[in-house]
């Protein structure tokens, strides 16, 4: 590697490369990104990484505190619960449910939201105003409440929770995407591109999406943090994942009775939830800051 970079190639980079350069300088966001990636990997590989099975009971080790405590045991790094199940293994597997399913829910929301939002953005007249008024009505209900209403119709269960969250997140998502597309369509470069002979498809694929996908990622992170909290909240309220499942909210609810006896069984899932939401928000916030900075210059 050369020590000096004689010709600064900074200006020569594509918009994506410039985005990454600015993002890198925002250290909290970068840490958030690493934590986020770690959660993704954990969610995908937890069953193979976990030292014990989720429902494997150790009758000789009930309610062991974490291993750094005097009473702890190295075999169970984060201790055990009242049935002698390893807390670490359960929490690792919980990432698959709480974090993994939230990502899936947010991804599906993104796909449907981008499709419908784009359609709403480019269509005019009666169709567009009908869709808008419909969205406005659903927008006035908080997403968790909407999810609970949908659960009331579908019945409790983990998969139903995912559907409920998707349906509850969609109105907001479609609304944001629609506004984004309408804003972008009003810009001069779209008019100019149309005058070059570009079709609607060209305008969307080469004009608008390359310029708004970062915003879509920002909206995605917001949807994701809402989804994580909603899945956990519904699990905690016993409307989502049911107890033997290792969803973090369900673990919390299950161990709530042990809060004085074995505080770590309640605190640790809470910490993980906090970390998952924090890292998602840090990434989203960092990205938003970069985009604002780019707009300013």
């Amino acid at each position, binding site marked *: 590697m050369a020590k000096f970079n004689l010709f600064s190639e900074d200006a020569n980079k594509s918009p994506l490369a410039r985005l990454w350069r600015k993002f890198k300088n925002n250290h909290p966001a970068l840490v958030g990104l690493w934590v986020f990636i770690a959660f993704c990997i954990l969610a995908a590989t937890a069953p193979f990484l976990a030292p014990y099975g989720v429902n494997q009971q150790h009758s000789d080790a009930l309610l062991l505190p974490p291993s750094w405590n005097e009473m702890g045991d190295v075999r169970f790094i984060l201790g055990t619960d009242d049935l002698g199940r390893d807390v670490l293994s359960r929490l690792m597997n919980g990432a698959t449910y709480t974090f993994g399913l939230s990502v899936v829910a947010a991804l599906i929301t993104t796909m449907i939201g981008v499709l419908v939002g784009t359609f709403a953005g480019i269509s005019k007249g009666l169709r567009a105003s009908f869709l808008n008024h419909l969205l406005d009505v659903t927008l006035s209900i908080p997403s968790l409440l909407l999810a609970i209403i949908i659960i009331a119709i579908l019945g409790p269960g983990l998969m139903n929770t995912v559907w409920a969250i998707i349906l509850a997140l969609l109105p907001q998502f479609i609304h944001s995407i629609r506004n984004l597309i309408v804003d972008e369509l009003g810009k001069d*470069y779209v008019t100019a591109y149309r005058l070059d002979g570009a079709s609607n498809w060209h305008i969307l694929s*080469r004009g608008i999406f390359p310029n708004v996908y970062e915003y879509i990622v920002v909206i995605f992170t917001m949807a994701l943090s809402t989804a994580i909290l909603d899945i956990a909240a519904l699990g905690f309220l016993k409307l989502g994942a049911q107890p033997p499942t290792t969803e973090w909210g369900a673990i919390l609810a299950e161990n709530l009775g042990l809060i004085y006896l074995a505080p770590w069984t309640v605190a640790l899932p809470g910490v993980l939830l906090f970390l998952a939401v924090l890292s998602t928000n840090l990434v989203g916030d960092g990205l938003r800051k970069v985009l604002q900075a780019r707009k300013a210059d």
Partner: protein
Amino acid sequence: MQPLLKVQALSKTFNIRAGLFNRKKFEVLKNISFSIGKGETIAIIGETGSGKSTLAKLLVGAYSADSGQILLENNTIENNGQRDAQCRYIRMIFQDSATSLNPALTIAEMLDDCLKFNTDFDQAQRSEKIDSTLLKVGLLVDHQQYYPHMFSIGQLQRVALARALILDPKVVVLDEALSSLDPSVRAQIVNLLLKLQLETGLTYILITHHLSLVRHISDQLVVLNKGEIVEYGDTETIFQSPQSKITQRLLSC
């Protein structure tokens, strides 16, 4: 001489929403007619809101007219709101080149798209055309790989010009395209425009507030007020003896 571009009784009305259900009609352009020959320049001046930009957008086809015709070399390209969508002989340069260029595409990609949409050139012909057009407007071939954010304002205006010229237009509409430039860059671009006009017989429609520029390069002058033509004729004659009050006021400031 047979005029190149003929505009006949062009009118445009916008529907403005005034309240929840009732809409108001707002006549932006009323009965606009003028004509220009090949290689000439016509200037359009008028107060803000007099409909100049609307007229420019009608000419290039970004809006469609309510009534009236636009004829290019005796071919009707717009007839009472029916636009010949294939026609790219009238091109426009926007006021702000920075916002009229797609930030996500390189210059080469943008020009290439232009050619792809409108010609059946193959890859080699297209890149040759891009090279020659860039050279024509005073840019380098290396600039192809640049993104719009990497250019200065003067260069961006040249890029916009390249984009207009790459389809070999007959008429170029400049809507305040020179106003945002500083004097020396403006002089450069004006000289470039005049040179191109001499070489290829381009016709310019110049919309500007800049009176000395109008006097310098335009052959004919149209004065618009509230969507109507109040004066139309030879530039020098109008500057010497403006007839209407509105023209007198515009020219005196």
